[in-house]
């Protein structure tokens, strides 16, 4: 889980071009949207691409992303659950 979260932080920074940020600047439970990192609806769509590209997980709709992308931890949990289901 810790490794997965560390990977995710690096991938998020790369995917969203957050050049000013280091992985350690993103808290495991920090909200990614609005009051947290300040991401928006376009970033949510980019994160959907990230999940598909790096983890072969396809979200059904942009709405589903709202709960998955709350924080790095919720993303990691979602990935772990989906992997367990397909395993």
């Amino acid at each position, binding site marked *: 889980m810790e490794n997965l979260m560390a990977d995710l932080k690096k991938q998020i920074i790369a995917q969203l071009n957050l050049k000013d940020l280091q992985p350690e600047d993103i808290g495991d439970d920090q909200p990614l949207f609005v009051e947290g990192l300040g991401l*928006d609806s376009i970033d949510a769509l980019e994160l959907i691409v990230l999940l598909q590209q790096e983890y072969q997980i396809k979200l059904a709709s*942009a709405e589903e992303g709202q709960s998955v992308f709350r924080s790095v931890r919720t993303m990691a949990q979602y990935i772990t659950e989906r992997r367990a289901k397909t395993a």
Partner: protein
Amino acid sequence: MFKPVFIAGSGIVSAIGSNVAQHIASFETESAGIGQHRYLQTRHALPVAEVMHSNSGLAALAGMADDLPRTALLSAVAAQEALRDAGLEDISRWRTGFVSANTVGGMDKTEDFYADFMQDAAKGRLRNLVHHECGAASELVADRLGIRNYVTTISTACSSSANAVFFAARLIRQNFLDIVVAGGVDALTRFTLNGFNTLMILDKQHCQPFDEHRRGLNLGEGAGYLVLVSDAVAESLARVPFCTLSGYSNANDAYHQTASSPDGTGSYLAMSGALNKAGLLPGDIDYINLHGTGTQNNDIAEGTAIAKLFEGRYPPMSSTKSFTGHTLGASGALEAVFSVLSIQHGMIYPNLRLATPMKELPFTPVTRFQKGCAVRHVLSNSFGFGGNCSSLVFSKV
């Protein structure tokens, strides 16, 4: 100081027909043009509203070569019909302009080029690239129509061709031109289909604009043109023009690159600005042709702005995108043509597949085709990415 402007003719091609008469027939029988693609080359099985002709078929209708971008071919078919409809086959004695809009230009050909070019930078037929720019399609058509006095192209995403229509009117108002063929076009391309697919706003079923359970939009293609003329030209015509562009407004939502503001600020400004320009009150409007894409975001923003502006007195309204799909750069022009036809024939178009009205809104769009209505003033909305919002008002003269 400013000269009046009349609408003298219209021409149109979309998934529901290749001319005005076929469109009226499709509206009367409530037949949408949405289905599986036949000509677009794509891996996606998403429903689209495709024009029912191959490029060769369109080229034959347009009298142009079939290796030109589909955008140019569609544009030529509709623009030629518009001039014929106006009875203006000979434009040589007038100062004539062509103001068109599109968002994809020759992208269909560029896509083909790119596949080869990516294999080898020296490969790819350059002929497929020469018409890439948006302006190229307009010039191919202007040259075909023999229009040289003024030619330009507008591209403001989904509001593009509404801007083309009112810019054309301004050029006549200012006595810069006598006749302008104005409107817009877009062909379906892989680029736009995949682009909208990444935004996850494409409906996998047939779209349901202004429905509580709407899932997104269907892309379409087509072209629409109006012939706008000065009073001097109008007087010379066999058929007296019955309609004018009485109001127009362009505003920016300035909220987000793609999302509309929740209260529809840009939409409200565009609609209220157009009414002001026309010297009309909301209660004077007899029909609203909605932007109504079928996305969650557009329909609630547009609906909220209408609820605020028309408070308590809602005219009949509908999204004709339930027939034609969302034709992007052509949509404002297609719907301008529908607005003019609404006035001409007293038609109100149905908003197809509306099952459950949106619970946030105090009004419901029209769901059945109506004819013989007294339609004097029509408002047409076109809103796009980048916050670009434009509204047009057409009035009976």
